[in-house]
């Protein structure tokens, strides 16, 4: 049976400008803007690896890779 794939999100805080685009394009609510209007990763476990956030981040600040444990 196919197991649920898991993904690791690398976020480059130094390049991120907290624009909120990843929050808007992720259908799994992985991201949120926190109370200081800073981007925060809140539900990484729900990531399905669709790459919507990485492809639309204007600042090359996100990388999402599948985690494979053999």
């Amino acid at each position: 049976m196919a197991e649920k794939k898991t993904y690791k999100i690398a976020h480059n805080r130094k390049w991120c400008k907290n624009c909120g685009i990843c929050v808007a394009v992720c259908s799994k609510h992985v991201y949120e803007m926190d109370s200081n209007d800073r981007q925060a990763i809140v539900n990484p476990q729900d990531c399905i690896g669709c790459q919507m956030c990485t492809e639309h981040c204007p600042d090359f600040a996100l990388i999402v890779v599948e985690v494979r444990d053999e």
Partner: protein
Amino acid sequence: MRSDFLRLERLPDIWCPGCGNGVALRALLEAIEQLGLDPDKVVLVSGIGCSSRAPAYTAFDNVHTLHGRAIPVATGIKLANPKLTVIVITGDGDSSAIGGNHLIHAARRDVDITVVVFNNYNYGMTGGQASPLTPSSSITTTTPSGNLDRPFDLVNLAAGAGATYVARSGIYFTKHLVDHLKKAITHEGFSLVDTIVQCPTYYGRFNKRGDAAQMLVSQKDWLVLKSVAEKKTPEQLAGKVIIGEFVNIGRHGPAAASTMKEQA
């Protein structure tokens, strides 16, 4: 996307939070990667503007020229070394206002370069003035009561001038954009991709288009695939912009030359 295509030491870039230029640049780098081009044989040329900063963040050879003059410089590079893949990154102002003449004549000559217009519908770098692509009625610094002029349709302009590959896409539709960039780059002859990006700082703010994320996601609502648009009435298409491939024909150059020979 290959991170060695970027000059990591130059990041973060100078663009405003949520500016669409970074998304368009990423799509272009993705297209170059997917085509398997030798990075040493790719040259990016730009003029002046926020969009024209893009090549400087890449590891390819690049030339940041004068405002509007990227196309003649790119033409020279291509003539000097036809083996190079020469790509121009330009803004709507850079390509259609000050550089408009270069654009139409490079299309007329069918110069084998690819022009990628990061079209944000205004002059971002200088504070949000109207460009020849600014839609009628839009608010800009120079049209505070709404733009009285009609814009060029860049696709029709390039096609009318003789471009042999013309497409339009938007950065929300990354796969569509990457696919059309790949076709434009591999096309032999003059190719242009009108790439819709957001300028949240000026065009978006002046025209109440919401924040960067809203501007980006709203492309879903006002950009319509050509195949879908063909089934719609003009009323249904009011206020929409059509994306897709509009011209994809053989080169004018050799064809014109052989016709001349036959006539002689």
